[in-house]
């Protein structure tokens, strides 16, 4: 278990480093702490929930076994992302850097990261579903249900955790503190769920933007979440 946890921390730190390097070495070094914190924190907050869901749907499963499975799931995710680190490092050094007038190829970098996290996350989930199926002889539908519940719980916590720990990367022309926490973004959203809601029902930009400037004086980088 300790070895799995250690590889989770190392791999996620490697990926975080490559992600942050698109902004600066400072951001990359910060991500050495922030990205492992995000994954381990999510696993820690959800551990009891994971266990109870597994207990309801797969009876012969023990607490430590559930923790091992979920840590393995996060480890797989981190490992797969870490394997893509050279790609993102290469892109971070070669993409057209943002300047005062436009964002250059930064949106492409961001989009690629989002796609990779989604694809890699799905692959890690499927692998653990198969493991669960083999180890506990669950029906396929039940394995998928257990993993789906774990995913929903992880997304609930992980998305807000990522919001709180933002920025992980960003436009290199703008600096930001270590974490922005619950400071409002350019639309005034102070948490992830509000930000998602505002995608569908955006507030008047002026009002939100003024609140952001007036409240905390830290503009940008919200796009980097």
């Amino acid at each position, binding site marked *: 278990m300790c070895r799995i946890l250690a590889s989770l921390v190392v791999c996620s730190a490697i990926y975080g480093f490559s992600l942050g390097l698109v902004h600066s070495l400072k951001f990359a070094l910060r991500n050495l702490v922030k990205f492992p914190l995000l994954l381990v924190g999510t696993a820690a*907050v959800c551990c009891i929930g994971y266990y109870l869901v597994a207990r309801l749907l797969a009876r012969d499963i023990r607490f430590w076994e559930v923790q091992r499975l979920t840590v393995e799931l996060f480890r797989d995710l981190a490992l797969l992302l870490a394997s893509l680190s050279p790609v993102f490092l290469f892109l971070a050094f070669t993409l057209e850097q943002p300047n005062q007038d436009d964002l250059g190829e930064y949106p492409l970098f961001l989009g690629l990261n989002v796609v990779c996290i989604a694809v890699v996350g799905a692959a890690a989930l499927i692998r653990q579903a198969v493991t669960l199926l083999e180890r506990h002889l669950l029906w396929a539908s039940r394995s998928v249900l257990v993993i789906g519940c774990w995913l929903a*719980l992880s997304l609930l916590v992980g998305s*807000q955790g990522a919001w709180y720990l933002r920025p992980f990367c960003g436009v290199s022309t703008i600096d930001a503190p270590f974490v922005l926490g*619950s400071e409002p973004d350019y639309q005034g959203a102070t948490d992830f769920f*509000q930000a998602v809601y505002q995608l569908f029902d955006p507030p008047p930009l002026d009002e939100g933007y003024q609140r952001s400037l007036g409240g905390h004086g830290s503009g940008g980088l919200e796009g980097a979440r």
Partner: protein
Amino acid sequence: MDETKTPMGEAASGGGVNGCGTIGGETGGVAPCAPAPAPLPAPAPFSETELRSALYLPHRAIDLVLTERERWLATVAEQRRLPVLVLVMVVAGGAFAVPYGVVLGAARFWQIAALYFGSVLICFPSLHVFSAFLGVRVRLAQSFALALLISTVAAIFTFGFFPVLWFLSATMSHEASTGTLQGISIVLLTVSLVAGVVQLARCLRSESPLARARGLSLLMFFWQCLLLFITYRMGLELGIV
């Protein structure tokens, strides 16, 4: 081949079990039978020691209610040590519901227990009276244990969700996110309640004579609808919804 050994080591002679063992062709022998599956032993009710250990070992209480549902149902059906089982469910449910209430606010520690157990207590008389009226052979303590299963499982699940709610409330700004947090809390509480309903439904699908009591499943369906409505109203009263 006149007879064949079953995996159980018994000699199954031709001609008999399960109607198989037809006469063979030229040899006049008997075709081998598939061995009759050994009947599963009936699940044993919980022992006094197991129930008492669940009073001070929280993980045992979780196992008791969530995992060992055949044995739970056997204990209820046979009414062996039923008062102790009910006591375990009340104590465990009450204790597991406290952390979630504390996250809502220190002074509100009792509200989740009140939400689930209060709703069950309000609806329980209707369950028992209707079951008697419809001729479902379930005793008072048995009805109470069945009803209590929903609230206990729901309370256990809130224990799983309290770190999630705490984390979200710790990372959200209180002025802007009260509505969001309340919405998420409602979803988590609903999921917990649904887990309780699902667990009861799974118990009622088993082979126990209690679960097969005529009309019980249908009655439980309508009663659970009532319970969901009352829980919603209770949530409104307590300011949770």
